[in-house]
């Protein structure tokens, strides 16, 4: 396991509608209270262990998001929260977006030679419990439940 103690998280909104963002804030409020597990939201990417990214990455935000991700110390892990971040959402091929975290990781690798690992948490918006499950999966505390299923007609 890469991290032995509790992790600090930086929230990065790359142009989403805010539904995923308020579910992330819901995770620190009394009903779910993730601070009892040691996780807290930090103000600066330099203090962060992981990044929670929401929103399809828009063209206007792209250079600023790249700067924020470059400031995170190694190893870099991005948790893509919501359907916009995982696959681009409804606007995956619209003109002002670049389409979700896959294209963002490609840009980071090709133009800045930085390797970033990604974890996907689908949902629109995902429940606070799903987000806690996603962070626990990144820490290898739980087993992954979903697998690629193929059915072939005989």
């Amino acid at each position, binding site marked *: 396991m890469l991290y032995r103690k509790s992790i600090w998280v930086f929230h990065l909104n790359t142009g989403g509608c805010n539904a995923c963002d308020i579910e992330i804030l819901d995770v620190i409020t009394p009903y779910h209270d993730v601070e009892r597990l040691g996780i807290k939201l930090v103000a600066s990417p330099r203090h962060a262990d992981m990044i929670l990214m929401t*929103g399809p990455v828009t063209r206007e935000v792209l250079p600023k998001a790249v700067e924020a991700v470059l400031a995170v110390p190694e190893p870099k892990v991005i948790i893509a929260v919501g359907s916009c971040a995982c696959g681009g959402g409804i606007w995956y091929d619209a*003109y002002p977006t670049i389409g979700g975290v896959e294209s963002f990781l490609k840009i980071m690798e090709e133009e800045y030679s930085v390797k970033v690992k990604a974890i996907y948490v689908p949902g629109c918006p995902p429940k606070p419990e799903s987000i806690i499950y996603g962070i626990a999966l990144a820490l290898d505390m739980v087993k992954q439940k979903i697998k690629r299923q193929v059915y072939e007609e005989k």
Partner: protein
Amino acid sequence: MVKEIIENIKGAFADYIIGIEVNKNKVYIEVEKKCLRPLVKLIKTNKQIHYVTSVGVDERPLRGGFRVYHIFTSIEEDYSIIIHTSTPQSHLTIPSIVPVTPGANWAEREIQDLLGLKFTGHPDPRKLILPDDWPPNIYPLRKDTPYNIRPPSKPTLYPFKRPRETSTLPIGPYHPLLHEPEYFELYVKGEEVVDVEYRGFHVHRGIEKLGESKLTYNQIPFIAERICGICGFTHSTCYCQAVEEAIGIDVPERARYIRSILLELERIHSHLLWIGVACHLLGFDTGFMHAWRIREPVMQLCEILTGNRKTYGANLVGGVRWDIKEKGVKKTLNVLSKIEDEFKRFIEDLMSIREVKLRLTNTGVLTKKDALKMEVVGPVLRASGVKYDVRKAHPYAAYKEVSFNVPVYSEGDNMARLIVRIDEVLESINIIRELIDKLPKGPIITEEIEIPGNRKGLSMTEAPRGENLHFIITGRDGFIYRWKVRAPTYANIPALKIMLKGCPLSDAPITIASIDPCFSCTDRVKVIDIKTKKTITVPLMRISRGKIW
């Protein structure tokens, strides 16, 4: 009153009027473009007329040229006047109405960015919406530009107008208690804010273009709900009402009541969210946790009624998808009585703290005259002494059948904006109880629907942040030709220039948050001392508490 205005227009501008069309309570007047500015000046002499927005339409496939609609509505009567004019493709200029209506500033810049029309006489024709690296001469909303075009990047710097002899404070896009990325620049002299500049639209995702090109009319309510994740149901209801008005069908009564119940539940959760965020910005984190603790049962109730905590997905053109059963009604009444009790106690606790009252009273003042001049909407307008609520002025869904008060205060400071929202939560709880009492039986959706082409529909709703507007023109084969959305924060942000002038720096965060810009979008600040060239980075919380150096 409005009928008199229309008679005056017919008398004074008879030579320039091309046609008048009446659709229930909406009057469409087509004029030639040279009489636009004096005509709008005549309309605006009336105190009850309020400018809403302007829409640009590319009509080259239909009848050639481009058309611009200017939409005005009355604050007191249930009437709207829409002035439209067209221009041929060879002369893409239209006289601007900003010298007579300052509220039209952003709407005309948007048409300039997305369609390529030029407005002569506009005082500030800078780029507004498209990204900084978008190449010139590609206009996304024109009908010959595909929706998935990805042109190569041409980076440019945004031209900020910085006044002299001031320090610049960039409040740049990322914030600890995060929401949307937005960018403000505050210009300070010592501790006092002199001016503010805004570079927003980081969240521009091309929603209108997608709705016009690849989605059918029944897929658009799902994308409309994701325009904003906090007040999404208002947007999808407003769109469905605009289409229903354009094609002339009636929604069953039970569906209208169910829509109103879900709209009021959304208002309660949105105001509680804002109160929590405002407490956090004042440094009162206990208040933030208590406000969100009280809000959580509302989210769980919506999960039982519609299947999801947010983005309910309950609207379709013609009605709603699911019914509220006996079990849902009982649970709603339970949750409402619990919330009312907890909320009243929380407000007493909040007002018993002296610092909250001292920091909010007499800060960020917006007078009634300025509020009417900048055409602000929502709780910001009602806290400055103007009584305008779309649920009373232009009733929609089931609001005609319930009785409720509209809270209005005249001080115009941050405290008035807080108290307006507190009163609205208590009113909403009573509205839901009355709606459940009177809930009629019957069907919940109108099945077979046909969409004829070239019909216009206009609808307004009262979102938690203010007045919302959707305008549609139907096209062929079940597609929509033009869809325009005007969200309430769009009208409120330009008023920040007036509210922040002369304001001490520590009051800037709570003033920016008090217009409820679909979340407070202020964040970490870089403070630059021009004389010693020292730069330090300070979290916004510390500025808000007065400790900078």
